């Protein structure tokens, strides 16, 4: 699996920037479309990318999302500088959320973000350090017909 990525693109994300939240995942979607990736895969990656982008917007100070396209898979790394996740197991539970009130008012924070990424990706990994930040990595395989 350790081949060179065909393409790497990074996008900066600002915490609390609800107005522009979702732009990075839109751009990721349009890149994947240009590459001719199958609609099913694009849909999965867009959903996961959007959730990870909104996680940075809602919880972190700043972050960066990096799209890596490999021959056989798509890897997205969402790295942030932020509070970190206290209880990872709890965070993975559907319906559990620690979203701030303004995010809930906007309709976020239903506790579906991380479970959604897990369900729509083939692999997912979270590394987190309290007070420092979180790095979420997910991969979607390209085995389906393009």
């Amino acid at each position: 699996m350790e081949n060179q990525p065909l393409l790497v693109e990074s996008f900066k994300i600002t915490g609390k920037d609800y107005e522009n939240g979702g732009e990075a995942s839109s751009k990721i979607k349009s890149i994947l479309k240009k590459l001719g990736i199958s609609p099913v895969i694009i849909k999965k990656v867009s959903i996961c990318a959007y959730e990870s982008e909104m996680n940075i917007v809602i919880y972190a100070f700043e972050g960066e999302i990096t799209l890596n396209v490999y021959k056989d898979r798509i890897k997205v790394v969402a790295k942030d500088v932020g509070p970190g996740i206290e209880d990872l197991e709890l965070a993975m539970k559907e319906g559990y959320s620690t979203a701030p009130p303004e995010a809930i008012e906007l309709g976020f924070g239903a506790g579906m973000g991380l479970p959604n990424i897990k369900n729509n990706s083939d692999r997912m990994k979270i590394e987190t350090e309290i007070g420092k930040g979180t790095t979420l990595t997910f991969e979607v395989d390209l085995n389906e017909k393009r």
Partner: protein
Amino acid sequence: MKKDENYINSIRTIREKCIGCTHCLRICSTEAIRVRNRKMELYDLKCIDCGECFKVCPTGSIYSFYDNIDIVKKFDYNILIVPNILPSVNFGLLSYEDVIKRLSSFGFNEIWEEGIGNEAYLIALKKTLKEKKDTIKPIIPTSCPAIVRLLQVNYPLLINNLTVINLPLDILGNYIKEKRKNIKSFGLFYLSTYPCKITALKNPLGLKSSPFNGVFSLSDIYKKVLVEKNEGSGEFFKSGKVGVSSGRRGGEEDFLEDFKVISIDGIWNIKKFFDEMEEEKIPYFDYIDAKACSLGCVGGVFLKNQNFLLNFYNQREEEKRRKSLMSDIIENDIDEFLKDESLLLTEKINPRPQYLLSENMDLAAKIFQEVNTIYDLLPKLDCGSCGAPSCRSFAEDVVLNKIKLTECKFIEEKNL
């Protein structure tokens, strides 16, 4: 009319008139236009026939293909379907009835309002929404052919949201064809206000053949109606309120009031909405009443000098004048309209994405990176003086060898 698979779009240009001004370049929602050697060039496969370029062209060099009215002479008995927005069109002092009589004098034995087809379409749609719970939602209509084409070229993820119900125009066409099958030499025609519908009749999407024998354009017929002195006595079949209202923004929404329906008009608004739909950022809807023209079909493109806001007003006035909700024909014969043969599409509408950098993913990724390298050199003003709609599309054209990098005015200056 036989289906012509090679007929891609109806937008044509008069090269001598084109001054290469780039108005059309900026308005095109699918980046189908380039200006090369000071002339507009169209990438046929990218064009979705929305007609926005026609509306903004200052020199009148963009027009739409249409059939000559003389083709009615080929048949002994002719039927014309007029667009449901015809009442909105300003013919000066002529009343709508006068217009219909003059149209009839061109050789039409019967004139039908397209709205009757829209009524059948909406009844069928309501039935689907009520009874077929497993239909993918929100349903996107086939009634605006420009939208169907937009999905094909730009939104393959949404193609399964398209309804399997036929274009309202074709539903009515099929009905008339069946009802008049005993007449030997009979021609069925449509008077179109949009290039998208002309293409939809020449090369119907989702159908093997079209029930129509020809299609005229309102911009051509408009002048002819104004100078015509004779009045014909062809029979006139009117739609009800619903048929008239379906030609404007919100009309379908009014009829489908029990469902969660959103009306969107204008091609750019629709693009934005579809983008968000692809990313699953849109809440649940049953149906999207999407119409490519501003304020719906009343904002149609063949009459540039008409004010579409006034057209919208006129259309609403006509709605008030109609006594019944639906046409008598619909009231009495709805089952005939709802037969699968005339109601449903016979072929699947497939995506044909036009944004791919290459069919091969490795190559596409390489091209993408080269495009980025070129893009970084560009001023990012999207000024259009190179003849491409944006710096990014220019960079793509450069990498794909369609244009030289030095065509960019800013690069040129730097090199000198």
